[in-house]
């Protein structure tokens, strides 16, 4: 808890200044046209946060693309310019939580610590950090809820039902 508070305070001091290099490998992995500077490690960080927001289970709920890539695609393509700017600032604020103690990254936190950090900031939609996390949650949910297994077996989706029964006793 103390560690998290410390990280949070550091974030408050440094957050929102610029797009922080989250790690030293500057090789881009996938190019997102509206986020040309986002680096491989930052993409991985987004993926890690999304998986912590909504547990990924690729074996049981396979999707055409990894969670992080889907979420970044939606952020890149479906948020308008103002929302993208807010997202970027929120992402900077999130990264700044880990900036000064160089040795620490989000992925290095214990799962419980990761969850606590996200939950603490998720509820506050007044801040850019909160908006950033909520965008990740919204698109993570969309990714999961449109997965084949979930649609077919939990939402009773049928691509070609060929029938309509209107009085089915439960």
């Amino acid at each position, binding site marked *: 808890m103390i560690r998290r508070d410390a990280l949070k305070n550091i974030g408050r001091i440094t957050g929102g200044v610029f797009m922080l290099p989250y790690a030293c490998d500057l090789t881009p992995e996938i190019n997102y046209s509206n986020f040309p500077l986002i680096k491989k490690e930052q993409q991985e960080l987004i993926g890690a946060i999304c998986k912590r927001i909504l547990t990924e289970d690729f074996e049981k709920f396979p999707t055409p693309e990894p969670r992080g890539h889907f979420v970044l695609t939606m952020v890149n393509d479906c948020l308008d310019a103002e929302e993208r700017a807010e997202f970027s600032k929120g992402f900077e604020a999130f990264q700044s939580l880990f900036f000064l103690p160089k040795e620490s990254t989000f992925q290095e936190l214990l799962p419980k610590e990761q969850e606590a950090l996200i939950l603490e900031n998720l509820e506050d939609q007044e801040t850019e950090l909160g908006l950033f996390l909520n965008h990740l949650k919204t698109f993570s949910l969309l990714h999961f809820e449109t997965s084949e297994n979930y*649609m077919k077996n939990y939402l009773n989706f049928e691509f070609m039902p060929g029938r309509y029964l209107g009085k089915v006793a439960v």
Partner: protein
Amino acid sequence: MSGGWAAKEFTEQGFKTLLLERGPNVEHLKDYPTTNMQPWEFKHRGRLTAKEIEDNPVASRCYAFREDAKHFFVKDKEHPYEQVKPFDWIRGYQVGGKSIMWARQVQRWSPYDFEGPERDGFAVDWPIRYEDLADWYTYVEGFVGVSGNKDGLDSLPDGDFLKPWESNVVEEYFSQQVKKHYSDRHVIYGRCAHLTESRPVFIEQGRGLCMSRRICQRGCPLGGYFNANSTLIPWALKTGNLTLKPNSVVHSVLYDETKQKAIGVRVIDAITKESQDYFAKVIFLNAATLNTNLILLNSKSNRFPNGLGNDNGLLGKYIAFHNYRATISAEYEGFPNYTLEGAKPTTHYVPRFRNLYKQETDFLRGYAAGFEAFPLRETLREGIGNDLKNQLLQTKETGVWGVGSHMMGETLPKESNQVSLDTEKTDEWGIPLLRIDVDYDDNDEKMIQDFYEQFSEMYSKAGFTNIVTNDNGRRPGNDIHEMGGVRMGKDPKTSLLNAWNQMHECKNVFVTDGACMTSTSTQNPSLTFMAITARAANYAIQQLKKGTV
């Protein structure tokens, strides 16, 4: 789809026919790129990108302009127009037009609809009555395939129907409740252009039964719903009498002042921009309501300096549409132990009951409405991590049903609701931009309030709770039922077309799409456009054979 009907009738009866389409070809099966895609296969899971919304403020307000079908819609920037007042002009520029993406609801007009303008003193009297069109409705329904019940209502005549899908438990309940409380109101199965039974003509068309996929706007590989691409166009091509020319933008109708009739059309190639004239004995204009108005307004000659046939100055005026602004929703807890299986491509329908037999309100005419009922599902999405995932996995139906209706209101054709040509701006084919000056009026506002009151009462009497009314703010045009501007009528001084859809002043030009409509009634109009077209085409064929046009 009315153009496809004209092509079918002429080619079937041996006439060499040229079918011009301003957009590209769309071949049934071959050109439905998303038709078999699963929801999870779409990059944005069906959503539009922010850029698509920004670039298409009009088209993106259409319910069907989404990731799976956006390629069938006109993009705002590519085909601009002038909005004197806010108007959403939703268009589909391709062979088959909007018949690919239409809502497939098909109801006949009744005698009360054709008699409306004369009885209530608006617009002009229709030159035809229901009896003139009844056989043509039957003719069209037999080729289209219409699923429905024979309801025996004089306000919504029965037709040649295929069997309906089953009603659900709440639809049946509401229908019974309305019958119990009101002698003049009915809740019936929504008649739709889907095949629920096979018949020889559908087999000949190569169409199969509807499988309730409910993604019709992508084009149906089964031919389960009716569109021009799967039926009319191949049917006409099969005769060997049809020449189909996509990418052909009709600029104007050519008028020969010596012969005192139209002799053809001027076409701009959509791709090369080259101009070419085509000649014909008879011309059917079916460019979809507002573009038909545009072509006629742009068809200027010494004889008709203000547009073809426009001696009375009324061309482009008396445009009307359907008012879809009002909705109502509620919940019903009466059938907690029932649910649904499968899907169907239609909902229920409440035919017009207001002012049907006599004037009874402080507004003219009335409205129809849809009615749908579905089990409500509860999915909690609190927190994060495994907790969140477990909530998603526990999604369940609550036992409560959601219900809803939307108003389909008749608007009154008025001279002030009109379209005209911009005097300065042109599109990239050199054709003047259309200026659209159409709006709601007080009659529409009063009708909305009445819908709220009447449906709130009907819902309350049925025991529905949490009733919420809503004005969705839809702009005129967003209903995609714009009509008029080249209206039919008895008198050349007050109308443009006669009872056979011939231009009063240019008898070999026929207008049979929505532009010909004298009034709009409340029904989805496509079935009436098709019936009017088949009737007019067969009349034109008779006249051609007699040598009178």
